[in-house]
């Protein structure tokens, strides 16, 4: 069983990058003395690889919530459709109110006529 978290691993890589940063000028000077620009390139490529590994671990941490995204998208789409239906039903209420208003006026008219007879 894995006993370290992704964050612990990325923290450790982060420390290695910081160590490099701290001794950067000496490391580059030594590399240059030993092998010129090629050695410096080699050293900086390794540094880039270390940083890329750190970013890979950041991606892995972000990936941890990715399985939830599909469910969230489905839920969001379902709610959007349901909201659409609600907005339509509100418009229908509006129509129903207008209709009821007309009905009451007609009924009122009938009652007026009936009470006059």
């Amino acid at each position, binding site marked *: 069983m894995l006993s370290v978290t992704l964050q612990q691993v990325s923290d450790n890589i982060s420390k290695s990058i910081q160590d490099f940063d701290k001794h950067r000028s000496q490391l580059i000077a030594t590399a240059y003395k030993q092998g*010129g620009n090629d050695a410096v390139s080699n050293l900086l490529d390794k540094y880039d690889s270390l940083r890329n590994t750190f970013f890979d671990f950041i991606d892995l941490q972000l990936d941890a919530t990715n399985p939830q995204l599909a469910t969230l998208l489905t839920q969001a789409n379902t709610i959007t459709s349901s909201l659409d239906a*609600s*907005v339509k039903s509100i418009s229908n209420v509006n129509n129903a109110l207008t209709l009821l208003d007309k009905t009451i006026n007609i009924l009122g008219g009938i009652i007026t006529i009936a009470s006059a007879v």
Partner: protein
Amino acid sequence: MKNLRTLCLLALIALFSHCSTSRNTVKLGNKVAQSGSALVAQVLKSYDLIAQLSTVDKKQQDLIRLLSYPNPAAMQLPDTRGRSLKYLPPKIAAFQSLKLVYAHYEELSDAASKDQINAASAALVASYVAITQLPAIPTSVQQMIPEGAADLTLGNQANKVREQNEAIRKLTSAYFEVWKKDVAPFKAYANRIYKDYYDAVLALPNSRFNPAAIQQYTGTPYRGDYNVISYKMKVRDDALGAIDNVNQTLDQTTDAFQQLIAAHNELSQKPVSQSNIINLTNSMNNTLSKLKN
């Protein structure tokens, strides 16, 4: 006849009181919906801020690489790989769906719908008042009007606003869980990018800099190495400021998220506390307005 008028008056009072509560719920629903839209827009801006860091990193690392070579004439042109985070796009897509949810919720609780319904309700109530002033109203009509009116007025919209609030509250809480888990990796990512830059600048030999050019650029009054070191300090402070900006943006977005969920919770209470919702949404908007990104 007197009893009939009293009954009608009571029915009207009940109808108006029902309308007032419903109108309140719709109005508060709209406030929460608008706050939700503002929050999601902020979350998307925060994701964008993080997405842009890969371009910042590439520029910084290319420059650092160039300045690291003791013999630049013989080096290859620096072209470090811009390292974007590959799981940002699906998250942005997911939050865009939430944005759509709030846009529709705003529509459900918007002023136009309210105005239409208010106008229809007002016409209905006017007809009702007119009819109650008639000398003889059949009992069947008396019974029908208040019930029909109460069922079909604003209450319907208010019920929909409440019902949808519950679904959106749960959905937003689930999105918040995703957001909370992303905040720590985002901070680590931004910290790494800016820190690696200023650490590398601080480590550069002073001979790489031209003090006269720095003086022209920054206007500092120092000589030689002092000028170079003060410039290095400026680079460090700017980078620390950028890290601080990212951290504040993420933290305040988290705070605003919490306030939005609290406003949703309040809206599902019976009776709804108008002042609590207004305080929470105002506080959320204040939090968001303080953000630069």
